[in-house]
């Protein structure tokens, strides 16, 4: 169930729009933010909020790169595999990540922290190879830098959990 405050916030935004459909991506993103991914329940919520059918939502959801219709980890790592990053060591970077996280491309770690996905050119060709973590970019990557990023993410997940449980 969608929390009442989020629902109200979305309803208010939709009310002000000339055409509710124009907010489809924003609503899907907001629901994804809440559910972790765009679950079936989220699709139904979005459909109801926007007065669209569920499949009309799914038509959009399954089109876009950054809307996840399946469960993903807390940190979604998109590794750029387009030309410049690929020339500058995408494959090594991918293999390093896969080894470190013990998952293949498309997989999610057992602890639910990381999902590894490829992505098309992210527009950081001047800082190749690059990857996005939850849409935040990291460039000029080396194995050491990647390890530091992963450690930092694990650390922030841990401290966030402690804060919420404590």
């Amino acid at each position, binding site marked *: 169930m969608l929390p009442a405050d989020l629902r109200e916030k979305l309803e208010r935004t939709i009310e002000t729009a000339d055409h509710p459909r124009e907010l489809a991506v924003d609503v899907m993103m907001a629901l994804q933010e809440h559910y972790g991914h765009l679950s079936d329940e989220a699709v139904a919520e979005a459909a109801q909020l*926007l007065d669209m059918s569920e499949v009309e939502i799914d038509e*959009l959801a399954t089109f876009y790169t950054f809307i996840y219709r399946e469960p993903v980890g807390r940190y979604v790592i998109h590794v750029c595999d387009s*030309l*410049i990053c690929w020339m500058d060591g995408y494959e090594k970077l991918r293999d390093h990540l896969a080894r470190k996280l013990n998952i293949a491309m498309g997989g999610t770690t057992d602890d639910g922290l990381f999902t590894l996905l490829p992505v098309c050119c992210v*527009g950081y060709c001047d800082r*190749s190879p690059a990857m996005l973590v939850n849409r*935040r970019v990291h460039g000029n990557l080396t194995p050491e830098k990647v390890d530091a990023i992963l450690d930092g993410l694990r650390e922030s997940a841990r401290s966030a959990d402690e804060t919420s449980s404590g």
Partner: protein
Amino acid sequence: MMSATPKKEYPQVLLANRHPDRIATLEEYRSSGGYRALADTLGAGPQDSLKETIAAAVLLGRGGAAFPAGVKLKTVADDAPFPRFLICNADEMEPGTFKDRVLIHADPHQLIEGMALTAYMASAEKGIIFIRPEYESAARILEREVGIAREAGYLGENILDSGFSFDIDVHRSGGRYICGEVTAQINALMGKRPNPAQPPPYPTEKGLWGLPTVVNNVETLCCVPHILRNGADWFQSLALTESGAGTKLYGVSGRVNRPGCFELPIGIPLSEIIEDYAGGMRDGRRFKACLPGGASTGFLPVEHYHIAMDFDSLKSVGNRLGTAAIMVFDETDCLVAATWNLLEFFARESCGWCTPCREGFPYLRDLLWRIENGQGEPEMIGALRELCRDMSYAYCAFSPGGIAPVESLLDLYEEEIVAHIEGKGCPFRKRS
């Protein structure tokens, strides 16, 4: 192949306020002459003469298609219905291209002023910046600076007491290359699947919600205040070639020492960009080829190393300036493999609407993968050519763009392909 002449200094227009570590503030933009064009032109004279100035400046669209911005503005009929829309296409997703990101991070108010002026010329009252989700930081900057501009009276109701009202929303895409295509972008904004729609009607006639809509690239819009402030002749004079006009942001990446985005005159020799600005070739290797304007342009071979980088001279050698994203290869790079990688991109990003694009790119990718990996057969070269020929009859410009590197590979580097097939594998891999 080092250039003998010393590095020249060229005027910085679009990146004049660029700082290495932060964005230019409203104050900095203003003190560099920013928003003066807006203050001077809003309500001061007929919009037609402004449009004339843009047309006379020969401002060609900087998003890759090089459509004259002035002509586009004039296609919005005087009696066209209202409201009208201006969309800033910040969905920069052409591989190798990052200039719009640099531009927004350098001087966002330049874009805001460019949009306000363009909207004024088109009598548009609503502006939308359509930005790719990977540029979240840029999106936040724009949202914040739009607010600041609104506070300062450069956006919103009755801008600078001119009677003209215009405001800007930032729309984050869900992320797909095809959303950069104008008609697909309009569909995306309407909450529809972002398939392109073949004109007519053109967006300037029936675009967003069936209303007149002008769509311009970030860089194109950023040129507008400067042109209106300094005139068409000034803009033309910035270029080094007769037919060119203005400066251009060249994004250089690949096998160079200092990849980056450089504002240089239209028509500057390629060799000068690479050597004087991008730090020359990496590891002392030799320039083999480059893609001069993103993934949708063909390979530019070494014999054109000194070519003037403008629309016409690239056209004359069967290539395109595209987004001026220069991706550089050296003699150790396998262009078969590089093309395969580009096809991976196009196959993944094809929207799936028309057959040639949807089925053709995976087909091309499969053939090149086999050739690269020792499964090539001589008849595959003919198959590649046939595929490219018929993929040019696709629905939108995606497919003709995507086959450009393949076609140039076939035209210029056929012996490299043959070497793969005859050698049952990639000749470059043994060396690396």
